[in-house]
């Protein structure tokens, strides 16, 4: 029987009622008394010298309160980068300044130049049009390899080149890897592009800054996945506001997918301007603005090679990747192509020698940072395309080649610095094959052929490292932050429980699933537990939600805090029942003395904690509230096997997804309904990357895909019903719930399945010359490959 409450139950989401009735409270729904509006005048050229910004005509326009330019921010810090990568020679990366408003130069289309604050949004927009700009346009660099030529225009004049860093991992292994390739019986090589994407959370970013002149406190309401991180970065590095004078609130947030992790200029601007004009200042992004300001994702160009011995065992992997940073370093950008990518290059396989080289490059494009999966989709795509190509070249079954090389003993230390605690890759592969009826494929292919279509089947594995992260480890790797999580559990006198978590929910359903955990531990109804998040004023310092970390790290903090609550509550119960603490048991919200019929209810104990008339006051403080900070001692390693079946129309090159199946091992699952939903969403994003989505720049750095007319978002009729399964469970060995994290798996595991399926279809159709097609596999690209 499926559980109907607590851990493991598909509890319906409590947050849904407000969202379904229009009662959600998103940042753009917040309007403060006396609020002014800001419109940013942005660069429409990719690269240029800013000779003059003439605001004189605009100053007198109706409703204008004040116009700000880069000059106003000369004494203010720039937007900080939260991760320093050390290059293969031991030198720190090149780290350019990132002013809130452009100073001296503009470096990408969308770079903010001036900010008009006015009584209404329309007046701010109108006045911005009256600002006269004198920009000397400079040649732009867009292509990464061209940007690294000695004569390339420099994005940042004060850096030595457009190379941010040249990273080698593990540098000491390079010679041994090269030697393994020289001895290989077979080498498979693949060059590929991991296409640039725009995250496109459906809610555009919004910021509302407020300043209290009476107390000198600043408040920022913002669309963020991590309000404490924004408070720290903006307060300490940009505006010089101590944390006790700065509150950051991220209320209901309409999706993030990574793009709302980062600290953006508009947040700092609204906070700064609210103090400057002594009025609240609001900014709401248009979608067009989102395309040119929200950090993009992916954008890697890679050559990867696999060495095999005569028995088809993997002996070495060698990669060379160019990773686009865009014009500035976004908050966590340097970590994505390095520590979130290189460390995953072992995949699910026992490859003893691996060398990863990454060159991160500045270009005149929007900054690139973490987007759902962040580095791990790039690693998975390379590896799983490569293994498929190797199987084809060797004439072996791609599933058999994978199984032959699977890691089967755990814990397993990879040659790329991580230790997988647990997993069973054959189990998820077995489950997948059971789900997809592989034996029936030939009959389905014959039917497609009769319909004039080419059918293909693509299968791949994935592993990811999530639940980020052990603070001491990431500190050694260059992180300028700790990656623990926090929770305060406050039990009220009448027994209600409020959990204040440092995690943030922007679609993940924490208000439901977190409550399930605490309710289960104490044995009270879920409705008796309230989850509070998103406001630095009433939650402990937390690092927020990204990297599939909330249940694994935030959930663990909550479990630790609840354990402290239970321990104290048992002491109180022991006192009330005049029993020994060691004999107290808690079940279904009832404290009992083992071996007797004595009992007190949860509510009796909580009341005693706050009305301590009969209470051990000499030994125990009144009250029932505990806080825990949890710092994980390893990543968690969800893994699985994915399969996609496609039909390709040979007349047009159009690819249709016929079916998609995902067999995942997420460890223990708190709410299976929510977990399935997370996988569904990830799959659509991965299918979107594989078939539809592409951020496209022309050679002058003009963004060609700057609206939903040009950027192809997956729609309901682009995707099928998915088959998802998470019944293969190897619990995480190092966190209290045995959970692994499920938020990114779908986006990580799905792109290679789609591309493998299309290549399979073309080969079955006789087009064996097609070894690879770069994503997105649009009809034009597929058709060209077929006829190339």
């Amino acid at each position, binding site marked *: 029987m499926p559980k109907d409450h607590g851990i493991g139950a598909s509890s*319906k*989401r409590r*947050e*849904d*009622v*407000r*969202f*379904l*009735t*229009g*009662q*959600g*409270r*998103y940042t*753009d*729904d917040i*309007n403060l008394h006396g609020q002014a509006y800001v419109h940013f005048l942005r660069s429409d050229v990719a690269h240029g010298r800013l000779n003059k910004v003439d605001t004189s005509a605009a100053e007198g326009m109706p409703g204008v309160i004040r116009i700000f330019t880069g000059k106003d921010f000369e004494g203010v810090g720039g937007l900080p980068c939260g991760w320093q990568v050390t290059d293969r020679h031991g030198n720190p990366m090149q780290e350019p300044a990132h002013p809130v408003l452009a100073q001296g130069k503009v470096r990408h289309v969308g770079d903010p130049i001036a900010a008009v604050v006015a009584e209404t949004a*329309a007046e701010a927009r109108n006045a911005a049009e009256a600002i006269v700009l004198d920009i000397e346009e400079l040649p732009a660099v867009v292509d990464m390899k061209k940007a690294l030529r000695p004569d390339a225009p420099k994005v940042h004049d004060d850096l030595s080149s457009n190379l941010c860093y040249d990273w080698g991992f593990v540098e000491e292994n390079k010679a041994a890897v090269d030697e393994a390739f020289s001895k290989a019986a077979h080498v498979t090589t693949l060059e590929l592009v991991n296409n640039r994407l725009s995250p*496109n*959370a*459906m*809610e*555009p970013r919004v910021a509302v800054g407020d300043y209290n002149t009476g107390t000198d406190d600043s408040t920022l309401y913002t669309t963020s996945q991590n309000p404490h991180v924004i408070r720290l970065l903006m307060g300490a590095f940009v505006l010089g506001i101590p944390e006790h004078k700065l509150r950051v609130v991220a209320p*209901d*947030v*309409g*999706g993030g*997918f990574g793009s709302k992790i980062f600290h953006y200029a508009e947040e700092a601007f609204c906070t700064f301007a609210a103090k400057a004009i002594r009025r609240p200042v609001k900014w709401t992004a*248009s*979608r*067009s603005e989102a395309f040119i300001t929200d950090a993009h994702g992916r954008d890697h160009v890679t050559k990867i090679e696999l060495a095999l011995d005569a028995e088809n065992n993997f002996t070495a992997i060698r990669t060379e990747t160019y990773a686009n940073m865009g014009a500035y370093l976004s908050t966590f950008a340097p970590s994505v192509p390095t520590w979130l990518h290189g460390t995953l290059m072992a995949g699910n396989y026992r490859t003893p020698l691996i060398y990863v080289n990454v060159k991160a490059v500045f270009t005149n494009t929007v900054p690139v940072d973490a987007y759902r999966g962040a580095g791990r989709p790039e690693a998975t795509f390379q590896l799983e395309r490569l293994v498929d190509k190797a199987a084809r070249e060797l004439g072996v079954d791609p599933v058999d080649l994978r199984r032959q090389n699977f890691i089967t003993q755990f814990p397993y230390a990879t040659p790329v610095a991580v230790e997988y605690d647990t997993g069973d890759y054959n189990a998820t592969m077995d489950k997948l094959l059971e789900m997809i009826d592989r034996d029936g494929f030939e009959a389905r292919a014959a039917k497609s052929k009769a319909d004039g279509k080419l059918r293909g089947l693509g299968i791949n594995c994935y592993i990811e490292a999530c639940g980020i992260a052990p603070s001491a480890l990431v500190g050694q790797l260059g992180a300028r932050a700790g990656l623990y999580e926090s929770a305060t559990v406050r039990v009220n006198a009448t027994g209600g429980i409020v959990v204040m978590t440092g995690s943030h929910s*922007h*679609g*993940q*359903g924490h208000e439901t699933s977190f409550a399930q955990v605490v309710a289960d531990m104490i044995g009270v109804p879920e409705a008796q537990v309230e989850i509070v998040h998103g406001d630095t004023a009433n939650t402990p310092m937390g690092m927020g939600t990204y990297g599939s970390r909330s249940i694994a790290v935030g959930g663990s903090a909550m479990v630790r805090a609840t354990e402290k609550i239970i321990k104290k509550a048992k002491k109180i119960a022991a006192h009330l029942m005049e029993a020994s603490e060691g004999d107290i048991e808690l079940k279904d919200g009832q404290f009992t003395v083992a071996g007797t019929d004595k009992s007190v209810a949860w509510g009796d104990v909580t009341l005693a904690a706050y009305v301590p008339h009969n209470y051990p006051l000499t030994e125990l403080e009144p009250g029932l509230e505990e806080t825990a900070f949890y710092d994980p001692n390893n990543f968690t390693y969800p893994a699985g096997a994915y399969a996609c079946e496609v039909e390709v129309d040979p007349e047009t090159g159009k690819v249709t997804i016929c079916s998609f199946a995902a067999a995942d091992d997420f460890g223990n699952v708190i709410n*299976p*309904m*929510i977990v*399935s*939903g997370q996988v*569904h*969403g*990830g*799959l*659509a*994003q991965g299918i979107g990357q594989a078939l539809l989505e592409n951020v496209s720049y022309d050679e002058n750095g003009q963004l060609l895909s700057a*609206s*939903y*007319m040009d950027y192809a*978002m*997956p*729609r*309901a*009729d682009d*995707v099928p*019903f*998915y*088959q*998802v399964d998470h019944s293969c469970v190897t619990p995480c060995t190092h966190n209290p719930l045995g959970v692994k994290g499920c938020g990114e798996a*779908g986006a990580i595991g799905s792109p290679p399945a789609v591309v493998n399926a299309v290549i399979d279809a073309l080969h079955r159709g006789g087009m064996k010359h097609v070894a690879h097609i770069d994503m997105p596999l649009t009809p034009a690209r597929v058709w060209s490959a077929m006829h190339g």
Partner: protein
Amino acid sequence: MTQVTMTVNGKAVTRDVEGRTLLAEFLREGLRLTGTHVGCDTSQCGACVVHVNGNAIKSCTALAADLDGASVTTIEGMANPDGSLSVIQQAFQDHHGLQCGFCTPGMVMSAAALLKENPKPTETEVRAYLEGNICRCTGYHNIVKAILAASGQDVGAIAAE
């Protein structure tokens, strides 16, 4: 400024509006009905879908001044009179047809318009009808499933979880 009178969720409202005021803006800023969301500026995303005189339209693409005398229903007007969730809303909750909730009002309004036109749509018809509503969270699986369920069809067999 033009004076317009509309019936919004059954209630008569009269306001002065600028010629350029969009219906979405009028609802959100003028009437504080913030359930209608704006997710794009090219009439693509569908987060702003409302019903005007019984037809689903994108409120980011209609001028308030053009709608004098119109009857408008927004997401705030979709629950049952006793405040409980309507069949469609309940189906979205039962089948986890929403995550961040931002596209949800538009999805519910489009679903209601679809089921009015076509009370027992097929999966293909549901997917085709939602062409103008973008969701980034759910991968559409549970939205399609919820709409089929709301139409009274057995979804257990159609969509494995």
